[in-house]
């Protein structure tokens, strides 16, 4: 990479009082470095550069600020950079301060960096701790996320995946599932937010993670939250159902217009079904879902879906919805103890199924989804 001398010289060009054109060139060069994996790894050992990038995000020149953020986004996309970045004491505090500023024009980039940093659990926890230290409450984040026009120049859609990442931590889930407050209810309408797949995906990821807390299932399915319609609406289509079927559905799913579109993103569709599946873990949950006539929606969905992975998930859900109740002692599917041989058999079955699905996927000649490094891959896994 760079020699010691070259590095020192470059660093000198990245000071705030350097001539703008020289500064600009230097940041551009740095940005280029972050575009490659080796470049990123090199910068891992150069905390001075990281600090310089952070400082220059306050530079008067917008072009420089943009490049710096771009570089930081690239860096944060690389997991090995997380520790060095967070070691910069001012890093997270600066980001949070800017995030909460309703006039800050680069808040979206800030969100992207935070989302990247929170993807993996260890750094996620660090991000969370820093949030608390900086006195930025989760409540504040939810509030600006749910307020139209909270920031005039930024859409703040990436707060969605940030929230989703933070729900890896039980503390975040506890906050969102707080029965004494009105948090999760405010997130629900965003499962259908057409303007941004990022925001939608983030919210649904959040809901899915929260549904791992099966003690809350009954409350989630009750009128107090009423999560079910918000999970089903993106999966419901314009097909006309009989009056009888309509009347048995939750209110929001009745008499859907003929221009109703289903969720376009297959990953999101899969997440929705996974969330529904999670809700069938308890006996009470299963009863409610059967009673609320979820099956016709999934039946029509199954006819429409083309992606093998999603079809498979759908079939699993339908099986539970129309299947018999498991025997006594096995009502909570998440707490059942599986004997070893059975577990092995199930694993083999799963592997076979995975192979089959992969085959089908290749046959479909799906387009490869390109994930740019400058856009953070969604940290939606648990």
């Amino acid at each position, binding site marked *: 990479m760079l020699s010691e001398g070259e590095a020192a010289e470059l660093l000198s060009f990245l000071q705030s009082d350097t001539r703008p054109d020289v500064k600009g060139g230097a940041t551009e060069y740095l940005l280029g470095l972050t575009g490659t994996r080796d470049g990123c790894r090199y910068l891992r050992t150069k905390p001075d550069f990281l600090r310089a990038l952070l400082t220059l995000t306050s530079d008067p020149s917008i072009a420089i600020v943009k490049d710096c953020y771009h570089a930081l986004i690239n860096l944060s996309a690389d997991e090995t950079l997380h520790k060095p970045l967070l070691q910069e004491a001012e890093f997270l505090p600066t980001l949070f301060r800017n995030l909460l500023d309703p006039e800050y024009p680069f808040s979206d980039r800030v969100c992207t960096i935070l989302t990247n940093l929170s993807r993996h659990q260890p750094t996620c926890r660090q991000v969370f701790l820093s949030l608390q230290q900086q006195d930025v409450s989760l*409540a504040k984040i939810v*509030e600006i996320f*749910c307020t139209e026009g909270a920031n005039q120049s930024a859409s703040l859609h990436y707060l969605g995946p940030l929230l989703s990442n933070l729900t890896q931590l039980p503390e975040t889930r506890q906050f969102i599932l707080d029965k*004494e*407050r*009105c948090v999760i*209810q*405010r997130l629900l309408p965003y499962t259908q937010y057409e303007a941004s797949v990022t925001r939608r995906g983030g919210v649904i990821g959040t809901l899915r993670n929260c549904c791992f807390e099966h003690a809350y299932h009954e409350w989630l399915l009750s*009128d*107090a939250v009423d999560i079910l*319609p918000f999970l089903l609406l993106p999966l419901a289509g314009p097909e006309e159902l009989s009056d009888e079927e309509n009347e048995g559905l939750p*209110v*929001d799913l*009745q*008499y*859907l*217009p003929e221009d109703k579109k289903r969720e376009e993103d297959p990953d999101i569709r899969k997440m929705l079904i996974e969330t529904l599946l999670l809700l069938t873990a308890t006996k009470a949950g299963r009863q409610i879902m059967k009673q609320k006539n979820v099956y016709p929606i999934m039946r029509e969905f199954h006819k429409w879906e083309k992606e093998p992975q999603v079809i498979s998930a759908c079939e699993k859900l339908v099986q539970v919805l129309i299947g018999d109740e498991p025997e006594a002692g096995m009502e909570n599917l998440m707490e059942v103890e599986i004997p070893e041989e059975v577990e092995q058999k199930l694993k083999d079955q799963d592997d076979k199924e995975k192979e089959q699905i992969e085959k089908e996927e290749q046959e479909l000649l799906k387009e490869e989804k390109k994930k740019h490094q400058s856009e953070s891959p969604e940290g939606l896994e648990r």
Partner: protein
Amino acid sequence: MAQSDSDDGMDEFMEKFKTQKYKNALNESNWEEEFEKVPMFMKTAPEEIDPLKNPDLACIQSIIHDDDRPPEEQAKSLKDEGNEYFKEKNYKKAIVAYTEGLKKNCSDSDLNAILYTNRAAAHFYLGNMRSALNDATAARKLKSDHIKAIIRGAQCCMELHNYAEALQWCDEGLRILPTEKKLQELRAKADKQKRAAERDARKAKAKVKKERTDRDALLTAVKERGIKLMPGQRQHRSSDSEEDDGAEGSAADMAELNLDGFSTQEATGAKVYLDEQGVLHWPVLFLYPEYRQTDFISAFCENSSFIDHLTVMFGEELPPWDTDKKYCPQNLQLFIEDHEKGHIYEVDVTKSLLSVLQHTRCSVKQGTPSFIILVKDSPFCKQFLSDEKVHLLK
């Protein structure tokens, strides 16, 4: 000695009371009434204070509303006054008091916020939702964290069925006090009503759409068969015409037919309909001019023949107005009127309704085909037909 003197004097004085009545005593018979008139002992204040009848009360009132005190104090007493009226459920008076308090324009914005909030509550209980909402809004402007005002505002929106706005008020309130139970309940209720209202709108839309589709299918069926519909008189506008705002896709003449073609004069409101097998069923009128009688068949299947119906109607029992007992099925002749030309056409009773309607000379008036029935070779029939131009319907 002086002390005992005054003691004596006192005793004498007291003795007097045992024997003499004191002046201005309360009357024995109506002392309770009189008692009520003394301001100190009044249980309730009179609605209006007449200075002539109640000078003491009028005095006290003027002290309260003394203009020399600072506006903050005046406003505060007016607030208290309003609150008293409110407790008595005298909301109108409460509003007057609060309004007076606000007029003082005092500098205490907390007090003004309370005045607005309380007035909002009074309006609320009187059912003046808009005024209540305005007051709640004003209160909130003065003191943005005034929870009572926010709750009241949300309640007003609910009563006005403005659920989206109610939700906004609740969320605002919950931002300030996230654990406020009343707001959470209101929010859940507003959300539920909002979604129910949305569903109702969708349902209504679906119904209108279905009606339109059914109507279009009907018109198409009729047109396909080549059956002509006569536009009825303009006066008879059926309920269809109101909904027919630019019948999408229908040709102009179809729309025109639709306006009047299916209106019927029948009180039963029977209309032609298309069943699930694609068969039309018409309301049909049989006219018996000889006796000025009519029969109404509400659903005559287009594939049925006239003789089918006549056999049922006249086969077993003849109608009571048939005094000559001559209206047997085999004696009957059926005719339709061509209103355009003023001719009469005889109809073959063995034919189906559809085949007759399809005939070029036949047009359906006001959605109800009507047929004249006479008895073959009867005197009336001969007379009737001699007056008209008769043809045979081929």
